[in-house]
């Protein structure tokens, strides 16, 4: 199969993103139309209490409704499982708050399509212009923790923009369901010898995404959960 005919699934996990999700879906669909990929945009509504489902459908996405809120890790796993079951060659995850540019997503898909990388991380920290110092500190701190716990060297272990090969879709599984899944996913990918790479992306911070984004206090919860997972793994 030639690379330009590949089937691509964009997974957008979202919780209470009714205000922006329609625009995010429309934007990515508009950009995908300019490519030669066969595509589908899937929004995993993680038990939102607002109109995320309706807005995502209006934007043109397929919507998977989680009956219960299960966290970013759970919603991402559901979206990627859907992509696997539907036979997509490549899947990409992106944030629902509009902080990722559709062009960066396509760029990542192109890289995976041509290089055969199994897991590609869009790193906001290779070029962190425009990012607040607090966010840089929090994300770098978590990347250091990820390195210390799992031996994975990533400049942005918490990035939501990730591109997966077919092999990743079939083999990559993780256990945590909160935001700590970002680090655990890298660890599991390393355990099963998937190739991991990074490419620079630009994060778009609006007032909305700043308000919705994770604060550094949440990093403590993430570290706690990662430590717990690491110890559980050591004990078998």
């Amino acid at each position, binding site marked *: 199969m030639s690379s330009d005919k590949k089937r691509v699934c964009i997974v957008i996990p979202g919780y209470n993103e009714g205000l922006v999700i329609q625009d995010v879906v429309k934007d990515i669909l508009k950009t995908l139309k300019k490519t030669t990929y066969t595509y589908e945009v899937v929004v995993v509504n993680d038990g939102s209490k607002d109109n995320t489902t309706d807005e995502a459908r209006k934007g043109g996405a*397929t919507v998977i409704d989680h009956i219960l809120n299960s966290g970013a890790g*759970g919603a991402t796993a559901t979206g990627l499982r859907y992509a696997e079951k539907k036979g997509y060659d490549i899947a990409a995850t992106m944030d629902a708050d509009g902080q990722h540019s559709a062009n960066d997503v396509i760029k990542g898909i192109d890289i995976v399509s041509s290089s055969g990388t199994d897991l590609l991380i869009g790193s906001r920290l290779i070029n962190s212009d425009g990012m607040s110092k607090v966010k840089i500190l929090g994300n770098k701190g978590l990347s250091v923790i990820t390195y210390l716990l799992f031996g994975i060297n990533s400049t942005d272990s918490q990035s939501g923009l990730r591109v997966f090969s077919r092999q990743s879709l079939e083999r990559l599984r993780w256990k945590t369901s909160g935001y700590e899944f970002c680090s655990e996913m890298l660890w599991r990918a390393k355990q099963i010898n998937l190739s991991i790479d990074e490419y620079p992306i630009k994060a778009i911070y609006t007032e909305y995404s700043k308000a919705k984004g994770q604060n550094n206090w949440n990093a403590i919860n993430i570290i706690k959960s990662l430590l717990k997972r690491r110890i559980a793994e050591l004990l*078998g």
Partner: protein
Amino acid sequence: MSRYLLLLLLNLPFIFAAILSIITQYKLNKISSRRLIVQIILWVIVLAGLVFALPIYEWLFSNNLTVSEPLSLFDVVQITAIVVVFYVVNRTRAKIDTLERRLRDLHQELSIRLSDK
């Protein structure tokens, strides 16, 4: 009957039950070889601690590393309770892990199937 022998007799059934359960789960492919090894090491340590409780106490006492009294009946009850709790916690953790995984898979599958309708 020696209190050390009583301690051993009271705890042996739990230790053997735990080791047997771990081996059975491994043979049924329900746990990894890593978990099998770690769990067996843990229970062998517990068993060794109980079997060699008297020589360990005597060695510690003769080297002035402890001034505590020899094993009392209350100690026997306490140590047995700790071993039982350890056994129960281990079993419960394994069951919760399995339930959590099955619930997550069910939730995922159900959500995908409902979206197809």
